[in-house]
């Protein structure tokens, strides 16, 4: 039972990160109809920045936070500018943008891999105490709570942003009907760069939170991208809460699989979950919107 509960809590924390990747997808997708495959790579680059600032330079945690968020914002905006915006202008969408975001994430991954070299994945220190907190029968590391708390804060902030601010409203309008929104004077490029910036912020904060949990591991970039996609598929397209719910479900599912089946074949759990959702409810748990023909 203790193991089970620990798995659930750990799964929730890791799942929150998958949810954050899915959230990044959603924010960008709603505004631009582009599925930004590089989202997981943005998180990974943020984690690597945390590793460099904390493990290599021994700078304060605030620098790591700023560095991670700043880097992922810059990369995300760069991607929007160089890769994505060209496709937004083009009539008739194909799969070009998908391939382009895939290529962009390949470039990021290769650059970081070369900078990091052959070093083994290393632990990244957290600003929170290492000692676990006893909660009922189990003890939990504070850094896991931090991931969950950051996710909650991001979701709340995003919902406020979407509902209360002018830009947020404009973004929702664009999500509803891009043509009508642009006729009302909402500039698509501005919406698109704002969305990518938000995607960068979400990735950066997620990276800072997950770095002490995951450590510096380059191959996690693709894993995050794919796990975030599964979270999105499970939770449902277009919904912020659905994204997080899907992520948590995947995280818990993975941990339980590790506990009761075999951690080496963890990916199978994700595949099973994905197939289950596809068969039972293809729109995802909280998704009412259809998968558009993209």
């Amino acid at each position, binding site marked *: 039972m203790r193991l089970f509960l620990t798995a659930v809590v750990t799964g929730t924390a890791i799942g929150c990160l998958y949810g954050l990747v899915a959230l990044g997808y959603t924010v960008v997708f709603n505004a631009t109809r582009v599925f930004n495959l590089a989202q997981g790579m943005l998180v990974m680059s943020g984690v690597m920045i945390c590793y460099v600032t904390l493990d290599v330079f021994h700078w304060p945690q605030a620098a790591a936070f700023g560095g991670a968020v700043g880097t992922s914002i810059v990369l995300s905006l760069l991607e929007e500018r160089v890769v994505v915006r060209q496709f937004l202008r083009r009539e008739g969408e194909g799969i070009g943008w998908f391939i382009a975001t895939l290529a962009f994430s390949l470039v990021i991954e290769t650059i970081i891999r070369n900078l990091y070299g052959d070093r083994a994945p290393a632990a990244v220190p957290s600003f929170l105490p290492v000692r676990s907190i006893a909660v009922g029968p189990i003890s939990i590391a504070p850094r896991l709570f931090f991931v969950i708390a950051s996710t909650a804060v991001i979701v709340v902030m995003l919902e406020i942003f979407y509902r209360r601010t002018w830009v947020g409203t404009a973004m929702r309008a664009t999500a509803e009907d891009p043509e009508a929104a642009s006729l009302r004077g909402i500039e698509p490029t501005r919406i698109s760069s704002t969305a990518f910036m938000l995607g960068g912020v979400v990735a950066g904060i997620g990276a800072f939170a997950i770095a002490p949990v995951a450590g510096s591991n380059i191959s996690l970039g*693709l894993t995050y991208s794919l796990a975030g996609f599964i979270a999105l598929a499970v939770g449902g397209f277009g919904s912020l809460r659905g994204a997080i719910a899907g992520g948590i479900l995947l995280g818990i599912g993975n941990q339980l699989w590790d506990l009761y089946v075999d951690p080496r074949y963890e990916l199978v759990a994700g595949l099973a979950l994905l197939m289950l959702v596809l068969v039972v409810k293809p729109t995802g748990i909280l998704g009412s919107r259809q*998968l558009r023909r993209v």
Partner: protein
Amino acid sequence: MPLVTANGTRRQLPWVLALLVVSGILPVALGLSEYRLGELEYVMSVSMVAVGLNIVMGYAGQLSLGPSAIFAVGGYTAAVLANAHPHFMGLPLLALAAMLAAGILGIVIGVPALRVGGFYLGMITLFLALLVPTIAGYLPLTGGSSGISLISNMGFAQVPSGMLLYEVTLLALAAIILLSWLLLYSRIGRRFVTLRSSEELAGSLGISGYRTKLLAFLLSALPAGLGGAFYVYTQQFFSSGSASTNLSIYLLAGCVIGGFGTVAGPILGALIVLGMSEFLGSLAQYQGIVFGVALIVIVLAAPEGIVGAYLSSRRPWPRAKRSPRAGGDRPRTARVVGGATRRVGLHLREQDLERGQSAESSEVDALERDSLAERALPEEQSSDRGGCGVGQFGVGAARGALRIEALKRNFGGVTALDAVTLRVAPGTVHALIGSNGSGKTTTLNIVSGFYRAHGGGVWLGGTRIDGHGPAFVACRGIARTFQTPKLLAGASVLENLLGAADRSISCSDVESLLRLPRGRRSYRQAIERAGVALEMAGIDEFADEIAGEVPHGTQRLVEVARAIALEPHFVLLDEPAAGLSPAEVDLLNHVVRAFAAKGVGVLLVEHNLPVVLELADEVTVLHHGAVIARGTPAEIVHDPQVAAAYLGSALARESVSDKPEGVGIGTDSGDSVAEPGPGREKD
């Protein structure tokens, strides 16, 4: 009879052939070492996977990032078998086993494609590309992280070996390229290309998205499996590193750079990508950057890839001048379509015509847009299994009337159709008119199987046909046209009709693929039939033009011609006259009358009242989803209720007394004429 005619292929094939011949001779001439030969064999094995990827992605348009997973399954199958039975498993058996295993996985991957498409499918396949090597890296069966090595297996010996093995590998690759080329120009290829262009179009031609996608995934898996077998046989080794996720991405990069949908593109791309990996040497660690940047540049600057750009830059045929149409009664030359066959074959350069012109279709109101989106719902898609087999189009269809009974349909809370009933008898023209949002197109979409009815139903003779998807309906001999033309924009006008003409000509896919006598004959028949359809629509002079480049009115007539080529029992025309010039309208009238004269029942949704009055035997008027009038054109014209619904009451009085010739109704919604005129009190 020049059957192999596509200029696109003609201009690719010499290069491909030259490459193959040089690859066959050069190593012998140079006396390459076994080591070098092994490297070349590796390149060729992986090129086979690229050819397979091109089939599913380039031809059929299904985003697949999982070729490395299929390659892995083929490779591991071969490796495990060769390791266990080194004496028994020769190269042919290994190849067979690997292709079988790969084919099974291909179909398994194809199953999600039935429910989702686009990047969603791309992500699932990418996930598999990560999952398969990861799992294989742990499984004892596949040798764990060190993989399976046949070199240490004393019993295993390459039976063809050295130079002979090299030539055999080259022959296998050549055979795969040849087959992939035959495939593109066979009726299977035409189905793939139609599917790629638009799933709705495919459905309306009776092509089942379900079967076609599965077939595409299967056919793409076979070369990948074969590649796996050759990899194992020539390298005597297979591990999870042989089929890493990056292999999929590099192959994708190769195909994009070379040109998806062309025959030579994937080969060229695979050579570039794999060759570069070899060349880069110590810089190989940066190849991700090189490929990534190249990919971005190509996708942005030359999305057709190198071969695609080469083909489109040097189109050999002159752009014919398009004179405005002279009129319906111009001399019809019974032109034999021999001229047109000169370059039949599908040039895969269609942009999404439908989308490009969406601005023009202002007709699509919010209601329709919602339902269009809804159509993409997986549930609705998955019902589309009713494609007809070879030559079954319209065969055995009940020759009764087409009956629509008490049809209901809601979109959200909005009632789009409320108990709509009408009947189209064979050989008659039934017009369905009404203002925007009155439910005309919704009716048509339910009849043609794109939407489901929420009440009532559609019967053809004694068979209920609604709710089974568009292919089911089409296969019962009901053709439709689309409001916004759905054409293969990069193919010629004649080629656009081939996919439709194929449907009612009996010939097996294998006969068509291998160009057996019956395949050739049916191909000739299809061309002939397409030519006749074009002539009937009065646009045969455009046969050789690129469909995306002919005038809009002509594109709409191509839609109609495509319906003719299907040889349907019933045809549903969705505002065929919109945007036509008067001369083209004459052509259209001609066609519709010819349909009726041949005993075809026509359901005509149309705004252009003169056209309706001229053609219709019976008219049904919809308003807010309900039938408000029905009768002969003359009766409808004098129905005050109809006039009120359309024109507002003030105008209605005039129109009752006047002949409403030339009044195009429906461009404004009836409700917008809210002026309270003197006649209002009547309501």
